[in-house]
């Protein structure tokens, strides 16, 4: 039964990815421009770090290559979010226009379908750029270490789960507030800010908020710390798994709860 369900959902996932690529190929010029824009965003993010490090040696104890590790981790997590879950950005529009009904009425788990309904394949460039930065960060800090690298990958997956869960939790508020365009802005600010090490928040309360309430630290800072430091911070490594677990199941519960408050605009 579990295997059958898994197979069914996996096939649907593959079909949705196929549709994404077909949508993408339909407008090659627009795809190319999106690709160029994404490339520019990546280059400018790196330029921002480069310009600042032209004048300084470190930020809150993080060297240039360690910061590149944080930015690279952030780009990979953000890239995965765009490639797989870009539909989350449009939930509020579908709720406002009443077009979410078409998705909810299908005999499949609503959260699964809403999450994977639409993706932006051109953002895979973010993942590629992130990988390059990660390689640069590794080579110029502790070098390649298999143990550190496997742990880094696991923490990066936790980062994706934490950010996805936080995203779906916040988007669920759209069922109440209807026009949730502000939620998009809020998520954008939160996501962008995870590209800086959380150690910049030298005030303990602020750092605590951006670690445990808004899980910024677990998106890029904690994975990059493992990748670029010889000593492993086991406390934060363990916490990363706890945070991913709590946020995932918490957001699942909240999504189901919020769905009960959906009053379709199209009916």
């Amino acid at each position: 039964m579990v295997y059958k369900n898994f197979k069914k959902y996996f096939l649907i996932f593959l079909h949705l990815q196929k549709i994404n690529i077909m949508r993408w190929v339909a407008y090659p010029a627009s795809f190319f421009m999106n690709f160029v824009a994404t490339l520019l965003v990546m280059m400018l993010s790196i330029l921002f770090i480069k310009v600042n490090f032209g004048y300084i040696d470190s930020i809150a104890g993080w060297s240039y290559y360690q910061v590149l590790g944080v930015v690279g981790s952030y780009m990979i997590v953000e890239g995965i979010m765009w490639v797989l879950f870009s539909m989350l950005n449009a939930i509020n529009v579908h709720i406002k226009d009443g077009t979410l009904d078409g998705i909810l009425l299908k005999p499949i788990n609503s959260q699964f379908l809403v999450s994977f309904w639409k993706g932006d394949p051109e953002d895979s460039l973010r993942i590629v750029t992130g990988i390059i930065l990660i390689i640069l960060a590794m080579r110029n800090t502790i070098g390649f270490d298999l143990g550190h690298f496997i742990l880094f990958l696991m923490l990066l997956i936790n980062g994706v789960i934490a950010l996805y869960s936080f995203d779906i939790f916040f988007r669920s508020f759209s069922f109440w507030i209807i026009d949730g365009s502000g939620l998009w802005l809020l998520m954008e600010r939160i996501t962008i800010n995870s590209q800086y090490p959380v150690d910049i928040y030298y005030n303990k309360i602020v750092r605590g908020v951006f670690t445990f309430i808004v899980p910024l630290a677990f998106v890029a800072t904690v994975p990059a710390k493992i990748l670029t430091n010889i000593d492993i911070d086991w406390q934060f490594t363990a916490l990363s798994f706890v945070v991913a677990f709590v946020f995932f199941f918490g957001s699942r519960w909240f999504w189901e709860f919020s769905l009960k408050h959906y009053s379709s605009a199209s009916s």
Partner: protein
Amino acid sequence: MGKYLAVAANSIKKNLAYRMNNFITMVSVFISFIVLFYFWNSIYRQGNQIGTYSLEEMISYYVFVTIFHLLVIGDNTAWSVGDEINNGQITSSVLRPINYLKYKFSQHMGNLAYRLMIFLPIILVVLFVLRNYITHAQNYTTYAIFALCAMLSYGLYFLVYFIVGIVAFWTAEAKGFFYTCWVVINFMQGGLIPLDLLPKWFSLISDSLPFKYLFFVPVSLASGRVNFDYKMIVVPVLWCIGMYFLAQLLYKKGLKKYEGYGL
């Protein structure tokens, strides 16, 4: 004139309809200010300095840039014009006795009025809390000139993105182009890095384009980094005039190509 005022008033009402959304937008704005404060403090508290910017000047620069960003947030003229062209909605504007550019500008002004109402309290709170970190112009004349520069910046911002949006007449899907323009313009206007921290050759390019008058020049004036120079007014005025005629010309040319697709 009355009909354009009605359009602006409608924009305000439309925005005010979703009050909870306004609150969430304010929270996200607040987060931006917290992050920029800690980011620059963590750099400077180690005894560092970025270029010729002191900590106060750097925080002031990004606080003012964030305020400028706030006043244009969500006001996606290019996207809105592009959507109306691509889905055929523009037909209803074409058939009415209105000037489309003035119609969109009225919406743009309505959005600005709404944002001023919503964000002014939080802007004032931030300026008060960060008062020891904010550098600003030292006399009232500079403030008056800054106000004029800011208005010109807002008008120029609208015209630039209106022209970008008009490109949709020539393509069925232009969102990728809009996004690329947004990324380039944001960088060229000093939205990411103060332009005077970039190499000299970049200044030469930047000086021959209108974008630095969108954010960099008014922000530098407000934060007291530069003194008034008549070019700060004359150049953007000339760009506004040029952009206005270019926008009208492209709109007329675009309409000849328009097929009412999507109706």
